[in-house]
């Protein structure tokens, strides 16, 4: 695997005693959250639907500016505040969010296009290289509507990689895919995002176990984060008996959180 994306400055986030509350709500969504998002590692937030994991991710992505009130201490690489985060984030959602009017190649180059730099030949060359890595270079000129769900999500992955940001936020990016495609994409994402700091949201314990260095389970009302013991080895892991047992434990833990 010849990974061309040069690892830039690494970025780790520490969250201490944080709480988030929407302006129009009385109860905070998250309270007393403590998390260490390690630089260059995959940190997974696991929790049931509606527990507030997306809120936390969207907050980190700067998508909730003016909508939530935050308390507690957020720091990046030891420096307080996450105001700088805005330009260091790439965001990958459950939907591929490919623009249907742009070709696959133009979709991969979307960040450049939105910066007004759409004809930069270097960026296009890099985009083609990334499409090669996700196995879609032959479809570079196709429209997204001509691709299957798994192919579309691979294009979205290439688009995320082109942004080359130190922090990648992923909101259930594989949950709409069939099992085989999901497995392939997990593998591919783990390889290509090796040097990045990744925060992954999922409700699938197996996905969390396969991909993460560190898992946090969000539970409670308002939710707080419980750290699981760090996992051994490098993701993507093969699913073995040990992981199966851990998955059992995780499932019963998640079940217990919502009686």
């Amino acid at each position, binding site marked *: 695997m010849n990974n061309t994306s040069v690892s830039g400055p690494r970025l780790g986030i520490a969250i201490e005693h944080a709480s988030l509350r929407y302006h129009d709500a009385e109860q905070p969504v998250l309270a007393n959250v403590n998390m260490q998002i390690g630089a260059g590692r995959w940190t997974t937030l696991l929790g049931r639907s509606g527990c507030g994991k997306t809120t936390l991710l*969207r907050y980190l*992505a*700067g*998508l909730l500016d003016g909508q939530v009130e935050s308390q507690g201490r957020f720091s990046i690489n030891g420096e307080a505040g996450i105001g700088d985060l*805005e*330009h260091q*984030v*790439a*965001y990958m*959602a459950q*939907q*591929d*969010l*490919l*623009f*249907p*009017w742009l070709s696959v190649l133009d979709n991969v180059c*979307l*960040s450049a*296009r*939105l*910066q*007004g730099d759409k004809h930069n030949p270097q960026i296009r060359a890099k985009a083609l290289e990334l499409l*090669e*890595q*996700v*196995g879609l270079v*032959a*479809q570079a000129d*196709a*429209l*997204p*509507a*001509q*691709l*299957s769900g798994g192919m579309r999500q*691979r294009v979205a992955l290439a688009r995320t990689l082109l*942004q080359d940001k130190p922090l990648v936020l992923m909101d259930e990016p594989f949950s709409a895919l069939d099992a085989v495609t999901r497995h*392939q994409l997990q593998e*591919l994402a783990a390889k290509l995002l090796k040097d990045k700091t990744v925060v992954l949201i999922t409700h699938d314990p197996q996905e969390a176990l396969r991909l993460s260095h560190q898992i946090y389970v969000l539970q409670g009302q308002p939710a707080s984060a419980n750290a699981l013991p760090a996992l051994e080895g490098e993701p993507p892991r093969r699913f073995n008996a040990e992981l199966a047992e851990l998955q059992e434990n995780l499932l019963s833990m998640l079940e217990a959180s919502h009686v």
Partner: protein
Amino acid sequence: MSDLPQVSNAIPAKAPRSRWVGKLVKASLSLLFILALWQAIVWIFKMPAFILPSPGAVLAKLVSRWDVLAHHSWVTAQEILLGLLLGLSMGLCFALQMLLFQPLRRWLLPILIASQAIPVFAIAPVLMLWLGYGIASKIVMAALIIFFPVTTCCYDGLRNTPRGYLDLAHTMGASPWRVLTQVRLPAALPALASGIRVAVVVAPIGAVVGEWVGSSEGLGYLMLQANARMLIDEMFAALFILASLSVALYFTADTLLNKLLPWQGSSN
């Protein structure tokens, strides 16, 4: 990345030529059916020619008076096309303003609704008074009648940009201007296209109403004249051209829009 399967499940596109031929065959079949029905009614009910002329008589008129008909058709076609152009750009500008200047919306919306509440027939005489008997008053008339559907379609399209697109653009640091031109406007195009499809059908009504109220040229004028002189076959000939014009306009617009916006109907 050789371990990834290169499955190409691209949607098979039907050969465009055969689709075209099929459409044409269907259209001519339904036209033939209508003509046959028309002829049958004339025969069965023994319609006098001054109530319902036979298709043959109308066809004969089309041929014998083609120069006059062509001249008036050209005038009406100009009114329709320029009216469409004016109405579409007005609608787009209005929708953009309502999107960009939210406070302005409260002031603009009543104007928009009023433009629709006053029947076009009622303002037609006023437009004649202000803009004269020439082509201008008919263009404005056609523009006014399509203004409302175009504006609402366009505004809805601009306002309902999928939130995911906007989030993505935001995390990519796009300026508001680029969000508008690169995300909101293209995302609104399918909605605008439905507005255009409606407008293309409605615009001829505006033009013809304008001609009825006062003009010296155009198919509407010709129909009034023919009616007054009991030239019913000529009236039908004009009507036939008008209908053909509208249908041709619709299918041209529809084909063009489908070609230009191949992603219509596909969404996340």
